[in-house]
């Protein structure tokens, strides 16, 4: 899959490969420590944050999981 920053696609794919292996073989089996993909992730993030700023994608200041406020369970 492509990255939003064209220059970041290769870094993204390398990171995804590393992450998917760690996620299935370690994390889901209860071993969440020792993430071997940290360096790859740092380089990927530097590239992607630059691309997000250039494209002015408004991801800043958005609370995790949608503000965490209660949502109505019916139409209003």
């Amino acid at each position, binding site marked *: *899959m*492509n*990255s*939003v*920053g064209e220059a*970041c696609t290769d870094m*993204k794919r390398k*990171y*995804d490969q590393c*992450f*998917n292996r760690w*996620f*299935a073989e370690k*994390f*889901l*089996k*209860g071993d*969440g*420590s020792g*993430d071997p993909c940290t360096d790859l*992730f740092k380089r*990927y*993030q530097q590239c*992607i*944050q630059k691309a*997000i700023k250039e494209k002015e*994608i*408004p*991801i800043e200041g*958005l609370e*995790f*999981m*949608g503000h965490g406020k209660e*949502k*109505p*369970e*019916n*139409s*209003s």
Partner: protein
Amino acid sequence: MVKYFLGQSVLRSSWDQVFAAFWQRYPNPYSKHVLTEDIVHREVTPDQKLLSRRLLTKTNRMPRWAERLFPANVAHSVYILEDSVVDPQNQTMTTFTWNINHARLMVVEERCVYRVNSDNSGWTEIRREAWVSSSLFGVSRAVQVRPLPKHLLRQPRKPRRRQRRQHWQLQRRPRTLPARLPPSSSSSNSSSLCSQPGPLPLPQPTRHPWAPSAPSFIVLYY
């Protein structure tokens, strides 16, 4: 005004397979409208949960009436954020997805909870909730009607009303055949239908709607 949807479904795969596949979702032939996918934040919490934020860009496919009303929106892709929490100890995953642009036109928020199926531990069930809203006057109704699932729009067939017999119909005597007149010499000059040879056609008896041969069970159920 917010429209709420709730759906539940089951994937016939184990929870760990579903969670692993979640990160390998794109690209796929059913999501050609998804253009890019990026992880913009990720961390493992002290209680061993994985928090992630994924940025997706999708094509902006609007109905024609919306393209005419909002030409400035046509050129821009849709940016979507998907936050997720993976909890391997409880074998659950929760995601929250929403669009961060085109929000003036419509906001769609979706929350999904993935957990082990209560009937079959080898399966995974998904509880999916969605909220669709629009703040634009006049657009909100069209925006909310359109995403309604098709099976909710189909109107149920009304059961056929049982025909009520009128009082005079119940009291009506059956018709009798007129007596056949002997042929007369003057009959050739008459053009009246009454002198035509042969019996008059009898009226067909009215079939009762609950007659055993009528497919009444089809009328009742739709």
